[in-house]
């Protein structure tokens, strides 16, 4: 089963600390949502409020249109997959997976049958008679998933479930989670601080910081067209170049920066068209720098820059550059793996206009 989830103006305070600050969020049925942010950003608090382990100081939670704000976890159509798996150590896998069904009064043979089906879903059917301590971390993870899904929840809440796994296994589990979510169609709400994980699995990402939602959208939008400086910086490496809007036209706005004036199309301003005099921060990802002549479409030329350091990363060279017009600025740019990069080299800098995002504020 699956259901939409709605959070309206949820605030949670612990004494003088505000963990969640007036958060509103609408999740569609069957979506894979990732709550992303640094530790202490409120993502786990939001998940606990969805699961019923905490109740909001203010605000409302509805699931499938029903008010769930003060319904205890056991009576919510949600189940939680815990970070430390929280499997029952004394039970066989089939009993772990069948526990929720047992609590719902299902007879032994029927729930064993169903538990086996869910163990099969996660590829552990042959281990049904093992106990959790006989399994590896990734396998325990799968059992926890099967146990949470066995009661057919409308919404599955995942609390940093992949945090304890090594990188390779984590990537593999991400693919599996995504595939299983597609198969069962349940709404998944997943918490993580790993932006690569978020991009790998999410239909939509909620970027959170200091108890607020900074950005909400599909991974490509969040990465390419962030709506906050924090979101731009959290999703991956980015260069922030401060500037001021000098003039706003019908289709573009002229921004003055230390690297010269750039006539940006209005759609570069992701939070709305600017007015003249506004301080803005231009966000440019390292991989968006082009050498003059390589770019397609309208290009902003940013003058020349000197290479002050570089390292080979396999897919690209990561270079530190010092722009000639503004030597106190440091820029990180990726150059193609086939390039000849040498320290002290002077390179012309250019960026596709469509790749630049301009956000109000002075950046960090």
């Amino acid at each position: 089963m699956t259901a939409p989830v709605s959070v309206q103006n949820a605030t949670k305070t612990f004494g003088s600390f505000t963990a969640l600050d007036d958060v509103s969020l609408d999740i569609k049925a069957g979506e894979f949502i990732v709550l992303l942010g640094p530790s202490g950003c409120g993502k786990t608090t939001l998940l606990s409020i969805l699961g019923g382990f905490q109740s909001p100081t203010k605000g409302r939670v509805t699931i499938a249109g029903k008010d769930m704000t003060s319904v205890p976890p056991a009576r919510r159509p949600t189940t939680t997959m815990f970070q430390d798996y929280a499997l029952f150590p004394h039970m066989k896998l089939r009993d772990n997976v069948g526990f929720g069904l047992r609590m719902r009064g299902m007879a032994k043979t029927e729930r064993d049958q169903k538990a086996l089906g869910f163990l099969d879903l996660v590829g552990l059917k042959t281990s049904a008679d093992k106990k959790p301590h006989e399994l590896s971390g990734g396998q325990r993870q799968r059992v926890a998933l099967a146990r949470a899904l066995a009661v057919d929840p409308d919404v599955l809440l995942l609390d940093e479930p992949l945090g304890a796994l090594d990188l390779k296994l984590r990537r593999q589990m991400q693919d599996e989670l995504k595939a299983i979510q597609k198969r069962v169609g349940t709404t998944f709400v997943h918490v993580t601080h790993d932006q690569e994980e978020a991009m790998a699995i999410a239909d939509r990402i909620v970027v959170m910081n200091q108890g607020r939602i900074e950005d909400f959208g599909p991974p490509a939008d969040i990465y390419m067209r962030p709506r906050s400086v924090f979101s731009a910086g959290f999703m991956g490496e980015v260069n922030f170049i401060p500037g001021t809007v000098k003039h706003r036209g019908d289709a573009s706005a002229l921004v003055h920066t230390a690297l010269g004036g750039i006539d940006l199309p209005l759609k570069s301003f992701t939070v709305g068209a600017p007015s003249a005099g506004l301080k803005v921060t231009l966000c440019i990802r390292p991989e968006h720098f082009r050498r003059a002549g390589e770019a397609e479409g309208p290009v902003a030329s940013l003058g020349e820059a000197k290479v002050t350091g570089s390292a080979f990363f396999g897919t690209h060279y990561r270079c530190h550059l010092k722009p000639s017009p503004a030597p106190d600025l440091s820029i990180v740019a990726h150059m193609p793996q086939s390039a000849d990069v040498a320290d002290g080299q002077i390179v012309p800098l250019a960026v596709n206009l469509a790749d630049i995002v301009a956000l109000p504020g002075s950046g960090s």
Partner: protein
Amino acid sequence: MRDMLTKVASFAYAGLIYGFIFLPVAVLVLFSFQDGRLPVPPFNGFSLQWYEAVFADRKLMAALANSFVVAIVSSLIACLLGFLAAYALARYKLPGSALQRGLLIAPMTVSYLIIALGLLTVLNAFGIKLSLWTVGIGHVVINLPLCFAIIYSSMGDHHINIERAARDLGANDVQVMALVTAPMLMPSILAAFFLSVTFSWDEFIIAFLLSRFDVTLPVEIWSLLRSGLNPKTNAIGSLVFLVSVAVLAVLELTLFGKTKKS
């Protein structure tokens, strides 16, 4: 040469230590097989006659059965109460929880004699007649602190999420305790149970002061001893010892052995 000397010295030391601990028991067991009327040297020869006498003694056998019942029932109650107290203090914020923990453990530091006298006064005041039940109550009083301490110390914070998962899957508080918490803590609950059984099994002062017509084995042995040394008391003493050893062996093999492995 020096190495040799230290080796000999350490072996001698170990021999003395074990001799000091086990020689009395060994002598007790040896003279329970005495072929003669007195359990003192010289050892006249091997005989099972005193064991025969023990098993033929109805009063002794009744006391043995009483001891079993009192040990098991009082230990079950002590474990149940200890578990509930430990669960409450480990999982809920209670007023003065440090004080409450202290109060629960405090009887451990009070001598059995004082506890027995106190209970005797209270039972008198309420007009409750002495019986095996009152002995059982006394044994619950002395074993509850032990059970509480053992079970409480094994209730780790890592169990909290597991209990939370059970609630999330629809279990109520009683189901969480019975199906998740207690089975998870089973090794320490069993350890507490078997230790209480051995303490109750050996306990004399409380059993002596709080019993009347039906008595437990230590009390019966004491009344035998009043009529002088007799290989029969050695035989029953050996049996008591054997039961204690058996309980400890079961404990070691099933519980402590397991926890070492995992």
